[in-house]
């Protein structure tokens, strides 16, 4: 394997981590819709951290190694339309992802407040926060954008 082959393999593995994080958050989005207790919500926090790590490593790895490949591999240039499109889509997905995180953190924060206040029973307010429709819409959009990046990477329009 050449050095660039290694970088390409790590770029693809980063993409796997990014999508794995998105999938993990989809499972949590569904699971948390039935969660109305502080303990039940807080119990998901370590899994959320795994998802955050996967998305963080994946997003960072794809952009850094992808830009490296655009400069290093003959036949591709950073200003190629499909590469510019991928970078723009990456920025959009990162921005949407950050907002999705904010939407779902409200439920986690409220669960911690309720637990600190000794309210351990079911809470309709917590359930409403966990069922955030804004969060679902944002995560759907982020998923669609990541899917578009994958399509762009495979079809390479204009290459």
């Amino acid at each position, binding site marked *: *394997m*050449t050095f*660039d*082959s*290694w970088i*390409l*393999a*790590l*770029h*693809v*593995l980063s*993409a*796997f981590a990014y*999508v*794995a*994080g*998105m*999938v*993990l958050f989809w*499972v949590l989005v569904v*699971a948390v819709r039935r969660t109305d207790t502080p303990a*039940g919500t807080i*119990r*998901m926090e*370590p*899994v959320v951290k*795994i998802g955050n790590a*996967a998305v963080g490593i994946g997003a960072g790895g794809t952009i850094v190694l992808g830009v490296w*490949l655009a400069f290093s*591999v*003959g*036949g*591709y240039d950073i200003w190629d339309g499909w590469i510019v499109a991928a970078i723009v889509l990456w920025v959009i997905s990162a921005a949407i992802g950050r907002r999705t995180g904010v939407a779902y953190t409200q439920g986690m924060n409220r669960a911690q407040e309720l637990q600190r206040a000794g309210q351990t029973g079911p809470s309709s307010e917590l359930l409403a926060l966990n069922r955030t429709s804004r969060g679902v819409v944002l995560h759907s959009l982020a998923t669609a954008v990541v*899917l578009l990046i*994958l*399509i762009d990477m*495979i*079809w*390479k329009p204009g*290459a």
Partner: protein
Amino acid sequence: MSVLAAVRPDSWNFPLFLHVLGAMILVGGLVTGASTLFFARGDARLLRLGYWSLLAVSLPGWVLMRIGAGWIYFKEGWDDLPSGVDDPTWLSIGTIIADAGGLILVVSLIAGGVGVYRLREGKGSALLRVTLVLSLLLLAAYLVAAWAMAGKLD
């Protein structure tokens, strides 16, 4: 360099897309299932969530990945190699891990299914720990396969 930058025929793109998307969903399900089972610490709800992540996400992902793999295998003409010419190493690694991994995934799902049933009966979660170990093993194996196939290991 030229191999890295090679542009494949358009007709290969959709099967490759299915293959890669399926593999990503498979790995996503494994990460979700393994981390949920790991952090469940006996919590029945999280144990069930971990198992269902494997069943409802990883298994369909594996099916999609394998259909895409078979399709692209024929599209690229690997079934039509001259006698005495073997598949390249990256392809052999990918094929072996995909197929053996599918078998291990089914075993882990059977163990997990019995484990979820036993959990309902209040009999402990030992079998779900087996599912956790197998899903971690699968995750490592599929990452090796993705690395070998993406880097086109010689």
